[in-house]
């Protein structure tokens, strides 16, 4: 009887209620902040991926338009470079390039030409609107006597960057 009466009483209830409410509020707020932070990082990642895809497409179209005699690396083929970590050029082995990340044993010989116009070194890209930056790597490999694979690899600088983006196509010259 006394216990029920005590529960009915209002003395001390505000403090307990406040403490419980504050705890729930804190947990909820922390969780919400976590969600917002995750959203932010996903948004940043999406934005970077968009910018990377745009850069890759632009570079691929530029290379696809090169005349056949110029579609190759400049005299000497690009060489492997271990830095920075994750550098796409680490997939170079001798004069070959591992063009397929899903199949590391798939390699093709890099094309080097006297009149080659595909740079051997990577280049910095920056998007003025989004103020994002990164690097673009280009590789031209020999699919056959009359076909060459163009692989463009784009990376982004900074936190929340998506993995390297590979865009590739094949250019051929007719047998005449």
């Amino acid at each position, binding site marked *: 009887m006394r216990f029920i009466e005590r529960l009915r009483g*209002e003395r001390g209830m*505000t403090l307990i209620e406040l403490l*419980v409410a504050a705890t729930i*509020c804190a947990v*909820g707020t922390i969780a919400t902040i976590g969600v917002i932070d995750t959203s932010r990082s*996903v948004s940043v990642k999406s934005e970077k991926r968009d910018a990377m895809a745009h850069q890759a497409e632009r570079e691929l179209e530029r290379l696809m338009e090169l005349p056949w005699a110029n579609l190759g690396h400049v005299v000497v083929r690009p060489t492997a470079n271990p830095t920075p970590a994750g550098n796409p050029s680490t997939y170079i082995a001798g004069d070959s390039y591992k063009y397929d990340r899903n199949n590391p044993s798939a390699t093709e010989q890099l094309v080097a030409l006297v009149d080659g116009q595909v740079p051997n070194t990577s280049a910095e890209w920056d998007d003025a609107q989004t103020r994002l930056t990164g690097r673009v790597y280009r590789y031209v490999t020999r699919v056959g006597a009359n076909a060459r694979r163009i692989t463009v690899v784009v990376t982004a600088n900074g936190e929340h960057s998506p993995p390297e983006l590979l*865009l*590739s*196509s094949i250019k051929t010259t007719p047998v005449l």
Partner: protein
Amino acid sequence: MRRLLNRFLRNQSGVALPVVLGSLTVVTGLAAGTFMVTVEGNHASARDRDSKKALGAAEAGLQMASLKLTELNPGVDKCVTLSPVDPGTSGAAPGECPMTDWQPIGNGARYRYTVATPTSGSCPTVPGFTPSGLDRCITSIGEVNGIRRRLQLRFYFRPPFLPWGHAGLVGKNKVDIGLNKTINSPVGTNGQVLLGNNSQIVGDIKIPDTAAPPQFGQHASATLGVTEVPEWQFPELDWATPKTDHNNAYLDAQLDPPVWDGKYLKLNQQQDITLVGGTYYLCGFDAPNGNTINVPDGQFVRMYILGDRGDSSWCNENDPVDGRFVIKNDGVVNPLPVTDPKAEQFALFVYGTDPDNHDNPPDVDMNNGVAFWGTIWAPNSTIQIKNNQTIKGGFTGGTIDMKNNGGFSYDSDIANQALPGTARAENLSWAECKRDPATATDPESGCS
């Protein structure tokens, strides 16, 4: 009732918790909404990336299809997958061309294509452009993670001209085979074939219905008789365009004047020479006595004899070998490897000064025991071959004049040897199509 409500509202116990929970619900809802929008944006970004990859794969399909078409050189009634195939096969609807299987290009991207015959499929045309009977419609699909892009290309391909696909010895105006000859090859002409006493053609004589009947000497014959064929064609080479891609510098490095003066190659007696693979442009060539011209095994030499061709020519018409290829007295061309010389390794092209004038020195003059493994394209010249020659390859001349013993053998390896510059390939129009064909059985549909 009203008193009860007032009392409830005045009572402050138990207010904080509902207020906090309510607020949290609202905030959580907003956060969840924001997160869902973000996730959707992330998916859209990934789809955009895959769409660009799929476009690259589809473009690769167009490129590989056009390459395959020029490599295989199929008849106009054939489709192309990885080989020439008939319409309506490999699961295609009747009259339609089949698609290839999916071809991977790495990193999850793949493509497949179909190449229509000129009549089985059509592509959008460029305004003002008249389609030709050689246009092919190529449709290619690129796919990455289920994202597809579909492209279409109208592609013109004129196949290369194959001079020696049907006969090894072809004369535009006449083929005069002298006495005691054995010709191991079909012979063709738009004019007349003259076969001297005791000569034999092991094969048939291929002539159009407008040609004069062949003349046979005593004991002369063609083992397979006379076959009527369409008129022989003799397309002109591009002689006018300045030549820059050649190997004349090799001669500059090897030979001094007067043997090589940058225009005429005139060997001394008994002088041998090796021509490395490449293209040579000469005003004239003279190998007077006992000369051997070697071509390294596995290499291919193309020699153009330009001659004086008018105002733009840098040759001298007064030079005795201007526009001529002369080899005499046991001269040998392309004899390696000794056991099995390859005619396809030496190709001679002669601009030609006079297709049918025996009073003038012939443009191609092989005299006395000459051995020659190669091909000659000289439809505006007389090719004269005299006295105990050994020849294997394919010859096309204005007049082919063979005298006194010896023989000629066809080399089947040259059947697919194309006349340079006669093929043409061109991209005529390009379009992106809807993701899937409008009609499932018509792979070209849904593109306009």
